[in-house]
Structures are given as C-alpha cells and as structure tokens.
C-alpha cells in the first residue's frame, strides 16, 4: 500500500476502513540467509537496505519485545553531522543525506525536520575548536556556519548571554541538523523491509548462539532454534549481554542516559540548542513539549531509569542557559541503556567467529546514525567488506592504536 494525499482523502471520506497493518506477523522459518538480532532502528534499517540495495530478502529480524521499543523509541531525536574526525564525519554526513531523502525513499512520513542545531561557544578556545570542527565538516561535504554573539542575541534573545561562568560568545550552526519522529523511523523501515519479504518477528528473544568450530550457524531463541548463514547483532544497550552468549567480551560498557519532557507550550525554540560547557541540550517537539537531557548517570547500569543527582544537574544546566525553562512543568522523564564504547565511537564489523557480525557502541548518538548504520551494515553483510565510510569502525582499533576519540577523553566510557 502506498501512502499519498489522495489516499488519505479517499480513506477520510470512506471511514478509514481501508488501512491495513503496516507489516505482517509471520511465524519464524527454520532457516534464513541472514538473521538480524534486534528490531531497533538499526536492525530494521539493515534489513531494509539488505533487501532494497542488495536483493537479499530471505532475512529475519528477531526482536525480544516489540519493534521500536528500545532506544529508537526513547531518544531525544536529534540528527546532525557535526563531527570532527575522519573516522566519523563522512559516516554521519552520509547518514544526514540519507535522512534527507528517507521519506520519499520509504514512502512514510517520519516528520524529518531540519530545524537546525546550534552548539554554543563560551570561550576563545572553544570558538577555535568549533571553527576547526566546521572546517572538518566542510571537508566531508557537510554544512556549517559560525554565528557571533550579536547574531545569536538577535535570533535567540531568551538565552542567558551574560552567565557569569559561561557567557555566550557565539555558536556553531548546522542548519541541516534537526529532529525526526523516532517511532516513525522504526515503523517506516519495518514496513519497507516487510514489503520486500523480510520477516519481522516480535517477541522472539535470542538466548544463545549455535557456534561450531569457530563458525556461527544460527541462534537459539525463545521460539526455538533458527539457522542462518549470517547472524548480525544489532542490540545497542544489550550488546554486552548478547555478545557474552557468543563468548565475546566487548570494548563496551552499558550506562543509563535520562531524558525529560515538559508540558506542551506554544513554539518558543526554533531549533536544537546545545550547551556543551554545562552539558545540556534542548529542542521542542512538534507537540510543543520541551525535550531535553544532559550527561549519562556515569556508572554501569541496565536499569532503565536514572538517579536524582543527574536530574538536578540537567535542571541546573537548563536554568543556567535558558532561565525561562524554569517556568515550564516537567511531565515525564525516562532512561535508556547506552552501549558506551571505550572511545565514544561505534563499531560495524565482523567478529572473530565466521558468520557472526557486530553493530554497536553507539553511545548516546546512534539515532542520527540509523540510516547510515543500516546502509553500511547491509554492505558489510552483503559484500563481506566494510563500507568505505565505516572502514574505521573496527573492533580491533584499540589493539591497533587507532581510537576514534572525538572528545580526547581516553578509554573511559563514562566520560564520552
């Protein structure tokens, strides 16, 4: 079924009785060419591009809960490609380009809104660093724009420019950055994969691997064993747990990140604003709620909730940069489990087990990566060679001394 304005009009006039479920609910087959573990954004995008770009359609996506119930449904929906390092920036720019064409491509409204992202600058050193980042973005074909304090005062008069500790001296804009309706991303990719023959199997937890003589031949699941020529992990915050079932230790720790939403307000913030010095970021959803967050809680966690000191820290960050936020009532908060890698950058790679592949380590930045992650992982699965823009995202990069450390923090996941 294709969506169009005409179709909406017709359904509207005939009682909306013609809409069909967006994907099937098939029984798992005994065997597939490719089994993808994890029905989050990345797993579904991988299945979609495998089917669409490489014609591999004998594929199952196995999801332990319901698709889109993981981090893809819990994040603050910011997309951008304002990275610095050559191992990252071209990848995230590919992702932003894919976002720009995504709705036409999969014929689904993901409410992609390029409302801009602004990283505030509070010191001369930070300005130099951000201008350098802007140049790195240009080199990868992205857009960047430096705005001085006067321009920002005119555009965003509600910011606290004269904060004693962190006065606002300017900021780096990426006008093509913005937000996306996160659930629709999962649903759109699921529909696109399903309509090309991919089986999306919900309530099917992978509980073990069938590995013989260093070769992976399938998985054990809560709905019985499933054989596969290739098995692709794509489970974000559960990476450590799932990889352990294959006898692997990863350069990853799981940490909780909280997010917050206020009551609905009339439009007050035009784009996404980030306050790096205090670590706070905020945007306004299409329903009017202010959506914001800050740092991870800072210690290993699989509890999908955080603790109060970080709530206080985030609220202080918000008040410091945007005092008017103190007038809004907070409606809800939640936590998601982040697969924090040792250098803050992700992995898309084969493992030491033949036929077993790994995608993870997305930290708190993997939503923006969803299309490119699927695109590059599908390439790896189809061709058995890394996609050029993901070529640095290897599991052995620490052993080789090639970290992709955007922040220069070293191997301490809670500082990235």
């Amino acid at each position, binding site marked *: 079924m294709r969506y169009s304005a005409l179709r909406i009009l017709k359904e509207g006039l005939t009682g909306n009785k013609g809409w069909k479920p967006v994907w099937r609910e098939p029984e798992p087959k005994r065997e597939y060419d490719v089994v993808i573990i994890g029905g989050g954004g990345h797993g579904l995008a991988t299945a979609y591009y495998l089917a669409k770009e490489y014609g591999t359609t004998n594929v199952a996506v196995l999801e332990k809960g319901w698709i889109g119930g993981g981090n893809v449904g819990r994040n603050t929906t910011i997309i951008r490609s304002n990275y610095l390092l050559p191992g990252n920036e071209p990848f995230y720019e590919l992702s932003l380009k894919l976002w720009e064409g995504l709705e036409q491509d999969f014929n689904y409204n993901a409410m992609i809104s390029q409302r801009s992202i602004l990283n505030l600058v509070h010191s001369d050193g930070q300005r130099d660093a951000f201008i350098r980042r802007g140049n790195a973005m240009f080199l990868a074909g992205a857009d960047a724009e430096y705005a001085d304090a006067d321009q920002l005062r005119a555009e965003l008069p509600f910011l606290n420019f004269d904060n004693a500790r962190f006065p606002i001296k300017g900021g780096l804009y990426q006008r093509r950055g913005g937000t996306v309706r996160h659930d629709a991303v999962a649903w759109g990719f699921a529909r696109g994969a399903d309509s090309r023959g991919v089986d999306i199997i919900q309530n099917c937890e992978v509980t073990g691997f069938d590995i013989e003589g260093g070769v992976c031949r399938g998985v054990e699941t809560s709905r019985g064993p499933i054989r596969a020529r290739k098995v692709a992990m794509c489970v974000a915050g559960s*990476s*450590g*747990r799932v990889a*352990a079932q294959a006898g692997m*230790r*990863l*350069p*990853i*720790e*799981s940490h909780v990140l909280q997010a917050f939403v206020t009551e609905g307000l009339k439009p007050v913030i035009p784009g996404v604003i980030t306050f790096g010095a205090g670590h706070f970021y905020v945007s306004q959803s299409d329903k009017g709620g202010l959506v914001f967050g800050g740092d991870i809680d*800072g*210690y*290993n*966690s*699989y*509890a999908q909730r955080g*603790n109060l*000191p970080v709530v206080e820290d985030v609220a202080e960050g918000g008040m410091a940069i945007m005092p008017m936020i103190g007038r809004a009532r907070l409606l809800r908060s939640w936590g998601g489990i982040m697969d924090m890698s*040792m250098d803050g950058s992700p992995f898309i790679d084969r493992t030491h087990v033949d036929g077993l592949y790994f995608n993870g380590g997305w930290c708190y930045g993997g939503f923006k990566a969803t299309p490119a992650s699927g695109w590059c992982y599908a390439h790896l699965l189809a061709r058995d060679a890394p996609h050029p823009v993901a070529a640095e995202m290897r599991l052995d990069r*620490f*052993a080789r001394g090639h970290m992709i450390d955007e922040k220069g923090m070293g*191997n*301490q*996941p*809670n500082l990235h």
Partner: protein
Amino acid sequence: MIINHPLLGPRDAAEFVYLGDAALIDRPDWQAKDAAEQFHAYGYLRDNPAGRHQELWYHEQGDRSWLVVTRDTLTHEITEVQLARDVARSRGRSA
C-alpha cells in the same frame, strides 16, 4: 544512591567519581610475554554484566579513598563496600 563508606558511613554517591570495573585492580605484568594482549584486554574489554558488578568509586569530595562497591546494575542495589586498598592487599597486589 547511598554508598556505605567503611570508614565514614553512608554517603551520597554524588560525592564520588566512578572509574569502572574493579577488575582494573588486576593490572597485568608488564614483563609477561603476552603483555600487549593482556593490556589490551585490561584497558579496553569489559564483562559488562547485567546484575552483580564490582566497581571502583573514588571519594573525591570526601576522604579521597578508593572503594570497591558491589552493586547490582539492574536494580542499583549496593550489597558490599570495601576499601580498595584492602581488596588489593587480599589479592596480593600491595604491601
């Protein structure tokens, strides 16, 4: 979270800085034949369990001691707190 410091009593976890898995106490022998592999595993690879986890916390805004805290990563429940010094000694790491 409240961490029950063995010397100072119950303290808010916000007074502490977190380092990570307490396996970091077990620094490999730099003269071992496979020291490079051992240090790679030591520095970068983690068990990352869902459940009981022993981890290092530094009482930066207190007595500046290092603690080994046994905590459940699913519930945040803390079941044991020891001085890292005592743990290291019991493992023969320190005089």
